[in-house]
């Protein structure tokens, strides 16, 4: 589904990603872990098409298409979804308005009929239960005045409504209490299927107790320095990231 080859990218002349290679197949869940500043969020933003980041080298293929040539909105219409680390507040735009416009633009792109108001509302109601959000929330402005937890739940709500093929969660677990974490994880797990894929970017192993990954990658200084199964996450939890920082990767890799 997604193949990243030798990806180099940065912002304002600073190279942050220094040769990422990653292959994600349909049905898989990949976790990308790493200490702060390792490039995790940059990778997520580059995948979503953030204009500020410049790709200097490498390629990304998504479902056979050159992802880097697609505008952010077309990436979304092709089924890519980024749950933001810091969801943006948009005063004056209601959650309903955002979702209805998004859903219908995506459907139009795919040559599907637009949803009428009744169909839309029943879909929305069904998905709201999943993330335990109140009805009143729909008429509120997008993320405006939301608590950190509400913002993250809203991202998962959007994910549930838009039903992407490839979901990228950028530190969706940060700052969540255990109840919110379970809600978020549950929302993500309902998306899991053999034709969809998920990339979970996280700093902590905790989320991976609830969203069990098939693969774990450790990102450090713009490169994936270690890949493994879910047991790698537990190992990281035990010994922390210091081993990568202290230049002991070799030791880990050889184990």
């Amino acid at each position: 589904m997604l193949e990243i080859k030798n990806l180099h990218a940065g912002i304002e002349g600073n190279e942050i990603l220094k040769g990422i290679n990653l292959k994600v197949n349909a049905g898989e869940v990949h976790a990308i872990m790493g200490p702060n500043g390792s490039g995790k969020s940059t990778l997520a933003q580059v995948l979503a098409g953030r204009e500020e980041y410049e790709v200097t080298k490498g390629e990304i293929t998504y479902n056979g298409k050159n992802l880097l040539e697609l505008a952010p909105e077309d990436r979304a219409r092709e089924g890519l979804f980024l749950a933001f680390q810091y969801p943006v507040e948009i005063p004056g735009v209601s959650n309903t308005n955002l979702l209805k416009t998004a859903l219908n633009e995506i459907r139009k792109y795919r040559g599907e009929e637009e949803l009428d108001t009744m169909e839309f509302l029943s879909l929305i109601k069904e998905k709201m239960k999943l993330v335990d959000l109140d009805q009143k929330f729909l008429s509120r402005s997008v993320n405006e005045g939301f608590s950190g937890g509400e913002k993250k739940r809203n991202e998962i709500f959007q994910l549930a409504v838009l039903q992407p093929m490839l979901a990228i969660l950028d530190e969706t677990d940060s700052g969540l209490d255990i109840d919110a974490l379970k809600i978020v994880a549950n929302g993500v797990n309902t998306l899991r299927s053999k034709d969809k894929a998920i990339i979970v970017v996280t700093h902590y192993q905790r989320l991976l107790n609830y969203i069990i990954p098939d693969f774990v990658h450790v990102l450090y200084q713009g490169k994936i320095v270690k890949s493994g199964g879910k047991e790698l996450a537990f190992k990281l939890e035990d010994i922390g990231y210091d081993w990568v920082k202290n230049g002991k990767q070799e030791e880990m890799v050889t184990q």
Partner: protein
Amino acid sequence: MDKAIDIKDWYISNFGEFEKRLNGGKESLIHEKRKAALSNFSRLDFPSIKDEEWKYTSLAPLLKYNFSPSYEKKSVSKDFISSLLFDELEHSLMVFVSGKFSGESSNLLNLPEGVIIGSIAEELNNNNQIVSKHLGKYADHQNNVFTALSTAFTQDGAFIYVPSGIIVEDPIHIIFITSLDNGKIITQPRNLFVAEKNSQVTIIEHYVSSEETIYFTNTVTEIVAEENAVVDHIKLQEESKKAFHIARMEVDQERNSNFSSHLISTGADLTRNDFNSKLNDEGSECTLNGLFMIDGTQLFDAHTLMDHAKPHCNSHEHYKGILDDKSRGVFNGKVIVRKDAQKTNAFQENNNILLSDEALVNTKPQLEIFADDVKCSHGATIGQMDEEAKFYLKSRGIGEDSSKAILLHAFASDVVTSIKIESVRNYIEKLITEKFNQ
């Protein structure tokens, strides 16, 4: 400078012809006023950018043209008029074509007893005492060259009178259409709205043109809100993009009166909008909201004055601008709180979005406070469109144009949503969409 003098002489030279066509109105009291205003006009100069009040607005483009009053009788197609109506809104309609009241296009619906909706020209002919009492009383022409010009050429405009205790439920929609003429024309609508004690009325002034031509609208509106009266005023300015629109509105507010104004301005090459409200007695409230959306080389200049003369009055002012291309915006909001006006609440805010690097806004709040127990605030912002918000919308599959439109609607929303009539709100939402989805 010489050009300005030439143009002044030009307008003065038009007066003879204007007078000739008045059909016997020359002996009336109003004609004495016209002549006095004309002599005032000849004494005054057109302001230049050296004048503090006109610092950012050069009148040079306006003074290039010799505009004359229109003496042709024009009519406008029904289809054009219906395109200007608000869907599903039952309302009284007054239509003026190139400055003159057009009875056949107008439609006055179930008005409560005693309410007068008429043309100023007719009311002057009928020697209406209310008109004589109020017309020109609030918009003084001694020191304002455009008001002097308007007063000298006073001919027609809308007159609305709501007697004491009467509630006019349906809004009154007044459309001023400038229609293609043989020459370059000036129209000078002169409006007077009087709401007596305990009355209520909603009035919409709507300025449009049937063709994209060069003309000059110089309009003066005087509004009286007597004790406990509620007056909601909406002005939609959609003039030709080549036109000049100079407007002055004077509001006289008495005890416990409640006046609100919404200005939506998208048209004209050069717009100057003066708004002055005098809160003359205790307990009165004034809301002044504005939204201007301009592009190309358009210039929009709003000068507002909230004059708090007495205690316990509230004023809220919120102006928003969306500027594209090389357009220029000016906002000058003055609030005076006089010595007696204790317990005044006066709030003012001006926010602007610049959609291009070449667009420019000059914003200047001016607070003059002489009382010591008041709450006043002001704020101004100038910014670009929120790129993060736009990216967020795009990342959800919403295209560039739709994302832009959504954010602009959101920006304008606090001005638009405070308009009480839904169909007018919808009309304005449509204007916003059309303006930026070309």
